[in-house]
Structures are given as C-alpha cells and as structure tokens.
C-alpha cells in the first residue's frame, strides 16, 4: 500500500497549467527525488503536498486519508525550504524547539529532543548561535533539525543544497542520506541537479513542463530513459539517427556503418541513444574522426565528428594508448547498451 499518494494532481495559475496529471505512489521510508529543469513545477508540486497551495484537480492522500482537507499547520510534515526560512530572531535551539512548543511538548522533554536533533545534524554546541552568525551549511543543518525534530510523517526538501558550494554540497548529500537511512523518514527531495538525485534517491521522478516524464530507480532512468528528454537531462548522451531494415534477413538496425540485429517491434526510422562511456573504439562500426581530446584525470573525453553527426566518447584512463586528435576511428557499442526509440521523420 502506498504511504503517500498523488493521483491526477494538477495546478493552474490563471490559464497557465503548471503541473498536470501528476500521479505518484510513495512507499513508507522511501527517498524520492523530483528532478527537472527550472520552472517545470517541482516546487509547486511540493507546496501542494505541504498545503501552501491547493491543487486545481486531483487527490493527495497520506495513509489513505485525504491530505488536502487538512490545514497545513496540522499535516505534521517536515519542510526544509530552499532559503531555509529560519527564524532569524531565535537561536538555533529556539528554532528547533519551535515545532515542539507548538505541540505542547514539556520543557524538559523539549530541551532533550532539541539537543539530540542538533547533535544528529552535527551541530552540538551551536545551541545558542543565531542563524545569521552561522555558515550556509550550518543553517541548512538547523533547518533540517527543525524539520526532523517534530518526527514528521514525510520530509519535504526544496533544493536544500543548492546554496552550498560543491564540496559542502557533497558532504551534506552523504549526511542527508545517512540521516534518512537511520531514522527512515519518507522523504521527497526537489532538485535540478541530476547527480544529487541519482546519488540520494531510491526513485527519481523526472519532470518536464509540469508533466512526469519517467518514474524509476536512478539506474533505470539513466540506462533506460523513457524519452529523449530524460536521456538528455540525465547526463550526457549521444543520439544517432538510424533505421531498422525489416527487408533484410535477419532484420537489421543500421546506424551509419554500424549495424546489429534489429530489436523486436520497431521498424523504419529510429533514434538510438548511447551513453558516451558505453562507446568504444574498434575495428568496425560507425566511422568518425576525433575533433578534440580532453584529459580529465581519471578519464578522457573525446569529441568526434561521426557519420551521424557529432558524438562524444568517454574512456577510462586505464593507461592504454588513446587515439589522438584528427585520427580516424570506428565507434562501436554493445546493442544492450543503447536505447532505441521510433523517430518521426519531418
């Protein structure tokens, strides 16, 4: 049974539909990411779950109870805002204690839980600091502690890490994941950073223009993208125009000079997507010329000019000699590493 369920949720601002037909079932303890470009409606969806916005259509249920009928103050969800929205006139401890105070937790109990919450996010000893005297990462932890201390049924995180620098963000990602694993709170994270979504979540909801493009595990969305949008958005990819020839026996999938037995189902013009790290250099295959070769420490990045347009190839720096700029090469890949979609010819 789904713990949190969104069914056909839509939101309109005037005539503009910002979220449309959003259906998702979140299991208890699951870590879900909403991933999509800016303006695709991630925050809007999160705010509808939180109750700050009312859905135009659709239902939101928590443990089979209609959530939209409950006032946001009574939903008992923990929310970390993109701007943290800490109370600047209160110390870290007072910030964390606020939600407990609203729940009439006794003073002694409160102090104990606040201390434990701050310790959990690694801020023991910072109880009496005011938010403006804390670094971005520390403020973010206070916001997390404030949301977690009320033992929320669902934790909603709206791009909580986007204000941090790369190193701190990575640290916080690891910490966030560990905390979530330990206490097992069902979590929804909004992000437009695909690495963040992949490294943190059990499942990713890829969104574009208010619609769900794909729901799947990080591996599924990366390796079996359901649409061109998903494959483009999740990391680099090569899209080649190919065709399936059903007149040949056995039927062939042809991409330039590369060919393989055709997969079942499709025929005619197709688009073939292959991740750059799945392409190798071989004796036969798609003809290409190396345009630039970039050394990036643990791997090489090649930009090629192939029969089917530009292509990128990533090779592990395993000490083997690599082709040089201007060299003619053949690109090959295993059929199971590509995803094939029908292509409409204009």
């Amino acid at each position, binding site marked *: 049974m789904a713990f949190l369920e969104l069914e056909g949720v839509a939101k309109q601002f005037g005539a503009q539909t910002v979220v449309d037909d959003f259906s998702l079932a979140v299991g208890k303890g699951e870590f879900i990411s909403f991933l999509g470009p800016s303006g695709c409606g991630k925050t809007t969806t999160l705010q509808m779950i939180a109750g700050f916005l009312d859905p135009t259509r659709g239902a939101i249920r928590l443990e089979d109870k209609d959530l939209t009928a409950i006032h946001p*103050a009574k939903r008992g969800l*923990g*929310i970390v805002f993109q701007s943290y929205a*800490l109370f*600047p*006139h209160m110390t870290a401890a007072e910030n964390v204690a*606020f939600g407990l105070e*609203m729940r009439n937790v006794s003073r002694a109990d409160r102090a104990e839980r606040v201390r434990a919450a701050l310790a959990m996010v690694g801020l023991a000893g910072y109880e009496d600091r005011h938010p403006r005297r804390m670094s971005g990462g520390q403020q973010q932890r206070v916001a997390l502690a404030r*949301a977690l201390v009320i033992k929320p049924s669902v934790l909603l995180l709206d791009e909580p890490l986007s204000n941090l620098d790369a190193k701190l963000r990575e640290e916080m990602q690891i910490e966030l994941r560990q905390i979530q694993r330990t206490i097992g709170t069902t979590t929804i994270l909004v992000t437009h950073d695909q690495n963040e979504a992949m490294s943190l979540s059990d499942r990713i909801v890829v969104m574009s223009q208010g619609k769900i493009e794909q729901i799947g595990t990080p591996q599924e969305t990366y390796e079996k993208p359901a649409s061109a949008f998903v494959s483009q958005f999740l990391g680099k990819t090569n899209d080649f125009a190919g065709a399936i020839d059903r007149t040949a026996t056995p039927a062939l999938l042809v991409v330039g000079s590369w060919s393989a037995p055709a997969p079942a189902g499709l025929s005619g013009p197709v688009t073939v997507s292959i991740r750059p790290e799945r392409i190798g250099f071989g004796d036969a295959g798609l003809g290409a010329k190396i345009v630039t070769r970039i050394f990036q420490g643990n791997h090489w990045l090649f930009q090629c000019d192939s029969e089917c347009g530009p292509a990128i190839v990533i090779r592990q720096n395993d000490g083997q000699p690599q082709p040089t700029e201007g060299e003619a090469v053949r690109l090959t890949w295993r059929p199971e590493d590509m995803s094939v979609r029908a292509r409409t010819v204009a």
Partner: protein
Amino acid sequence: MSAAAEERNARAPWALTAPALMLFVGVLLIPLAMTVMLSFHDWGQYKGIEPVFILKNWKEIATDPYYAEMFWRTFRIAILTTLLTALLGAPEAYILNRMSGRWKSFFLLVILGPLLISVVARTLGWALLFGGNNGLVNKLLMSAGVIRFPIPFMFTETGMVVALAHVMMPFMVLSVWAALQRLDPQIENAAMSLGAGPITIIRRIIMPQIMPGVLSGAIIVFSLSASAFATPAIIGGRRLKVAATLAYDEFLNTLNWPLGAAVATLLLVALVLIVVGSNALIERRYAEVFR
C-alpha cells in the same frame, strides 16, 4: 605608488566632499552655532538684544514651571502620536504587504500620496471636519442628534495627536514596510508547517522581526512630532502651545530672540539625546535581526 600620488589620493575625498561640506557648514552649522550663542545673550523690552554672555534665559527656563509644562506637553504629544502611528501603521503595513500586485501599488499610493500635499493643507482638513460648530462632521452629528455639543478637537491635545498621527503615518508605514521586505517570503509557511496558527505566527515570528522597523519608524515620528510646527500651530494656535510654537512666539511676537533661541536649543539637545540614546539601545537589543 609614489608618495606624491599617495598624498593626492589622501586629499581627494576632502576635495570631492568640499562643496557639500561647505553648504552643510554654511546653512546648518553656522546658524545653529549662532542660535546657541544667541541663547546666552541678554534681552530687554527697550534695550533689545545685548550681545553679552549670561545664563538668564537658561535660568528662566529651568526655574519657571511654565517651560517645564510646555516641554512635558511637547513630549507627551510626541509619545502619544508615536504610539498611535505604531498601533495603526504596523498592521497597515503588514496588510499592505499581503495584498496582491495591483491593489498593493494602489494602496501604497494612497498611503504615500498625502506626502505630496502640504502639511498645512492636511491639518486644515481636520480643522474643516472638526472645527467647532462649523466643522463638517460636528455639524452632521449634531443635526443627526448623535451629539449635543461639538466634539472638542481644536485647541486640544487629543486633536493635536490625531492630526499629527495622520501627518506622520506614512513614515511609520514606510519604515515597517522596509522591515517586512527583509522577511523571508517563506517564513510564515515555515512556521505554519511547524504547527503555528495565524496569531502565533504574527506574535512569535512576524512581530519580533519587524520590531526594529517599528522602532526606527518610532524614532522618526517622535522627533518629527516633537519638533513639528505647522500642525500644532493650526490645531493648538496660541492657546495650546508646544516647544516649537513657543520658540516661534518668542521670536516673532515677544521679539525675545535670546529666550526663543534657548527654547529651540533645549528642544534640539533633548531630541538629539533621546534619538541617539534610543537608537543605540535598539541596535544593541536587535543586533541579531539587524545584521
């Protein structure tokens, strides 16, 4: 960098600010110094002003209870005006801030618009509405039988406080408005998600954060009210004097310039002390919110 260039650089700020500095000294500092000097001069009905250094005027102000009453009234009116503007202006700014786009700009204009109209015209408006038997409101209420006698407004402290509060309101609203702009737009949602109701949100989250704005608005309103001239002059006339109208009368009616100068100087010094003192207090108290 060479020593000469360094010297030139050191002098540049002075050279650049010189014109403004000269204006400041010429039209503010010198007349102010002259007023302070004047307050130590002697004056007699027939001999006029005598440029000597005596403490006669200051002694008179210190000993004659008339002046104490005058200053006490001035500050009482200023304090009440400040309270009234804070009580009305802070909620006004909060409501204004919650309005949506078009209404917000419309009502902001309504609130700030009066600043474009002379204080004299605005105060005379009150006189037209409540001025004795002929005041519009008084006339209406009396003919409707709601009241038997006109509501006393002119020549009363209440009238002066109401009229001053009306004149000063934009300063309070603007000051609180500025504080509201600094709030995190999600702060109310954050408090709500933690289980706080609307009243708790205003009392525990919004109020403490806009308090510095209310207090700096209060300082502006207080100092402007305590030194206001036009409104007290129209509402109070010569029957209900405050420090500013008193100084004016000494200068232009009694022609006792030195005494008027002493009153004006005392008002200035008192105001400067109050404003600087309370400002320091506020900044210390609200260091966390101000930073």
